[in-house]
């Protein structure tokens, strides 16, 4: 990237000028440092709090005897983090297993074939994004109550699908639109049937888009808070809501919440780092069109 802080070239490099370059560099580095502190200090602090013994939690100390006790406690019978982790995993896994194949097929159909009402359909799913999700939850809440589905992972999966499928279609359709149709034609001429074209030609080419959509849906479902807050009570509670169990009568068990939190965010952070580049691309080009 170019130096945005431009130094007029007509001026001759004299001592004064060199000095100002130095100052600009120092200023820049301090700004970068401030940004790093602002963005990463909170994460760093959560991370070290997770390893702090009870006695050190309420101090600002960085040097302490690290302990794994907090992790042991949160997975113990009192908090049962394992159960909530399983709930979250089930909800995310089933949601993704339905969302991704269904959305990829639909994107392919919408991208390659003439379908009456196609534009209207794409506009309608975009328009639903303006309506706050809580409007979605209200009728579901009353229906699940009637059907006895409140506090089940099935209920959470159903509500999550309404959130993830529209996103996944928009994200993958943008990618599939950009794949040239020639290769599919060529494969057809060579005698491949439609399913072979889909499996051997389209899927490998659309992989970056599919990965982006998967990670995006993974992150929003994993971190999904409102549905879980409304629909679950005890049995189907997922991780974001489980964090509130560390807020008790006598205050908050910060070290244990931090330990649970670190284990909670680990999967999304890792996945996000793996597909960072495609993700930004997908959000900027495929997301808004």
């Amino acid at each position, binding site marked *: 990237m170019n130096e*945005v802080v431009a130094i007029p070239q007509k001026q001759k490099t004299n001592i004064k000028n060199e000095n100002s370059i130095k100052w600009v560099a120092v200023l820049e580095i301090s700004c970068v440092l401030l940004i790093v502190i602002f963005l990463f200090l909170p994460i760093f602090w959560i991370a070290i709090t997770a390893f702090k013994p009870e006695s050190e939690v309420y101090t600002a100390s960085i040097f302490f005897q690290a302990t794994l006790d907090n992790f042991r406690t949160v997975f113990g019978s009192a908090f049962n983090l394992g159960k909530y982790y399983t709930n979250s995993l089930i909800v995310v896994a089933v949601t993704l297993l339905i969302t991704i194949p*269904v959305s990829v097929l639909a994107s392919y159909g*919408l991208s390659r074939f003439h*379908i009456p009402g196609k534009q209207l359909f794409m506009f309608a799913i975009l328009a639903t994004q303006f309506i*706050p999700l809580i409007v979605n939850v209200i009728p579901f809440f009353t229906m699940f109550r009637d059907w006895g589905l409140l506090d089940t992972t099935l209920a959470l999966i159903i509500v999550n699908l309404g959130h993830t499928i529209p996103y996944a279609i928009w994200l993958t359709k943008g990618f599939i639109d950009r794949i040239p149709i020639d290769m599919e034609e060529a494969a057809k001429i060579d005698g491949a049937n439609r399913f072979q074209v889909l499996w051997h030609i389209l899927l490998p080419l659309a992989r970056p888009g599919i990965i982006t959509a998967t990670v995006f849906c993974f992150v929003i479902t994993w971190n999904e808070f409102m549905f879980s807050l409304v629909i679950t009570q005890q049995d189907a509670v997922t991780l974001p809501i489980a964090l509130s169990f560390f807020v008790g009568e006598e205050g908050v068990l910060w070290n244990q919440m931090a330990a649970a939190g670190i284990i909670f965010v680990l999967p999304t*952070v890792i*996945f996000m780092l793996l597909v960072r580049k495609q993700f930004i691309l997908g959000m900027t080009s495929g997301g808004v069109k």
Partner: protein
Amino acid sequence: MNQKLFKFGLIAPAFILIAATTFYPLMKSFWISLHDWDLKTSAEMGPFIGFDNYIRAFSDSQFWNSVKATLIFAASTVVLTLILSIFVAILLSKDKKYLSYLRAVLIIPFAMSPALIGYSWRFMLNPDYGLFDKIIGFLFPPLSDVVWLGTSTTAMAALISVVVWIWLPFMSLMFISGLMGMPSEVFEAAKMDGASSFKTLIHVTLPMLKPIILIASILMTMFTLKAFDPVVTMTRGGPGDSTEVLNFFIYKTGFRYFDMGYSSALGYILALITIVFVIIYMRKLVKGDDWN
């Protein structure tokens, strides 16, 4: 014939699922919004009352309070995030090794759960042992006695800071990809002409970023108007009702007071507010001649 079956076979599952999980509940809640329905007293929907729930909102002082909170919160968050993320992007988009490492990990805050961040902010703003509280008190001694989540202004500021923190990395990355895709000749030319760095920013960089700025404003506005998780985990609308943004007010009406009809109506009002903002941006977007 076979072709027709194939193409409808492709989209049918998605269409059915979206119809069942999105279109249907949205229409159903619009229908609910036209009824009086107190879930505490009756499991069945009450009498049809037309648009009374919508009219009711206009004379509800709590509604106006939350509209005010929402607008203050959303406007400050969007403006702050955009300015800061352009600034961050300009700083981080230079061709230096250590910056490329930083760009690689910049997405991490965005992947973190907003609920966890909300709780953590509460922890770090605690007046007795919070890290942020200590740092602020050290840097600005007059502020050392402030109970951050205890007064309406500071609680709102804290809420804004959380949401800015959550979105800054993602928005910065959008601008970074925009800046790094720009032809470097333009900046060379500006330099040759003796433009100062500030002038280059105003006359070259920002106009070229305009399409991304518009997309970012639309996305940020949509996200902030719907903000929920950090409000619940950090301030719970308090102190009083000073940080009770609309989405939280809707939740409270629906799932604490179980006034389903009114809650649905409020949801649609929030949708309308969002659409008005997006239309304003879209018109700007269409007007902008550098947009294809």
